[in-house]
């Protein structure tokens, strides 16, 4: 078996605010293989974003180990991370094409190649013909597609997605889920996908990591043995329901409750 691409063990994160110390993440341990799409699910405020930002090198951490990359698959933190947030975070004075090119400009990649790749990626995310539009001329889903193309422009090995479809309506969201699976297959990236939707987590992930509240702890890490390519009708399969029910139970909810996990209680 090949060495994992991402390895976290016993990661702890303490936020120091004024005179208080706040333990946001504790004892998080998981591995991700290269090319996997792993969902991370948990209540709001449980530390999902914090974990992604630790992986992105934005946050420091107080204990444990974080390793990304392996000998066979070296990882350069400045060039190999693509990020997508809940908000598209596009520059509103740049057209779609120029937005996609931003990371390439920052990294100083060759202009011609980047331009070709941007066109290719915009086609891949279904935005061919929208290169010269401004973000405000696009729908929310199209803006998020632009953000995905931007995350891929510098051909990073790891894509970190923080509730990327959380602000979209349910229909668009399902469509984007299918698109993401196609993009994942086409681009062969390792993707960590944070969500607080259980259905979404199961539908996308080859594995689902479950976090619980205060501080974020690993509650589970289950493989989803549903075949790819996944289709929306799989959501009605018995197998799918079993996984979903299992996760609902973990997060302390009835299966007939809402799909969205509640917020962490502040004790």
């Amino acid at each position, binding site marked *: 078996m090949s060495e994992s691409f991402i390895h976290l063990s016993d990661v702890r994160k303490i936020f120091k605010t004024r005179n208080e110390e706040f333990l946001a993440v504790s004892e998080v341990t998981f591995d991700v293989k290269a090319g996997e799409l792993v969902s991370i699910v948990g209540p709001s405020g449980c530390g999902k974003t914090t974990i992604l930002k630790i992986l992105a090198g934005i946050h420091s951490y107080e204990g444990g180990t974080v390793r990304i990359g392996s000998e066979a698959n070296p990882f350069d933190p400045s060039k190999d991370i693509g990020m997508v947030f809940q908000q598209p975070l596009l520059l509103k004075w740049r057209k779609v094409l120029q937005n996609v090119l931003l*990371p390439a400009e*920052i990294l100083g990649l060759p202009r011609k190649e980047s331009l070709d790749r941007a066109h290719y990626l915009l086609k891949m995310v279904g935005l061919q013909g929208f290169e010269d539009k401004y973000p405000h001329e696009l729908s929310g889903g199209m803006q998020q597609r632009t953000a995905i193309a931007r995350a891929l422009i510098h051909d990073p090995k790891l894509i970190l997605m923080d509730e990327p479809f959380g602000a979209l309506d349910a229909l668009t969201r399902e469509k984007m889920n299918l698109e993401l699976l196609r993009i994942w297959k086409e681009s062969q990236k390792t993707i960590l996908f944070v969500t607080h939707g259980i259905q979404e987590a199961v539908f996308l992930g080859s594995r689902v990591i479950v976090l619980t509240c205060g501080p974020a702890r690993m509650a589970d890490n289950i493989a989803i043995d549903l075949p790819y390519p996944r289709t929306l009708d799989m959501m009605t399969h018995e197998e799918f329901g079993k996984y979903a029910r299992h996760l609902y139970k973990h997060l302390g909810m009835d299966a007939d409750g809402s799909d969205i996990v509640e917020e962490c209680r502040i004790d």
Partner: protein
Amino acid sequence: MNDISKQARRYVLIILIHLGVVIIWHLWVTMSNIPDYVMPSPGATLLSLGEEYGWLHNTYITAVEVFGGYFLAVIAGVGLALIFNWFKTMETMFMPLMVSLNMIPKVALGPLFIVWLSYGVGPNILISFSICFLPILLTMERGLRESDPDLLDLVRTLRASRWQIFTKIQLPGSLPYLFSGMKVAVVLAVAGAIVGEFIASQEGLGYLMLQVQVTLDTAAMFMAVLIITAIGVVLYGLVLLLEYLFIGQAPKEI
């Protein structure tokens, strides 16, 4: 309907409404018996240009004060905002002071400027400058600060340099703020120059207004107000042009 003819119709409408106001003004004055020294007609106002009031010279003086004060304020406001952005300790130290200074009613400083600098074009430029400098500084400073933290995180994962963050994100992001501040400042710059001329001056349209007030030449006062307004409109137009050149088709609202 295409965009161009839509635009054209909009401009025609704007002109018609302005013309309408002038016509109503004319009808109102001619059909009522308001005396001329209270409310001159549009025609009488226009005719006052024939009087020997040195219109050209006075317009030139006021325009120099307005444009001079405004130009200095843009240079100083933008410059200081950039300094604050690059040297955060300066910002922490002096920004609260700027906010306090903004609370001073600047026209109240007029008499002081005149004590310090005697009267003339110089002090009036200074009054105009002082009244519109802070709104420009404050909006620009805010615009530079307003970048989304997640977006900054995103470019920091790419090891973007401070200069890249400044040129690619902060500076272009601040422009809509700057232009909204600059638009507010246009009216202030005009008001500042006129107040200066009211307090102590021997030339300029504000000075002229005080002169003709004594002789109850209301038509000339009206004309002066119109020219003062026109100076503001020209300056505003220049700001719109600059805005178009810098921002172009991208959204202008914040």
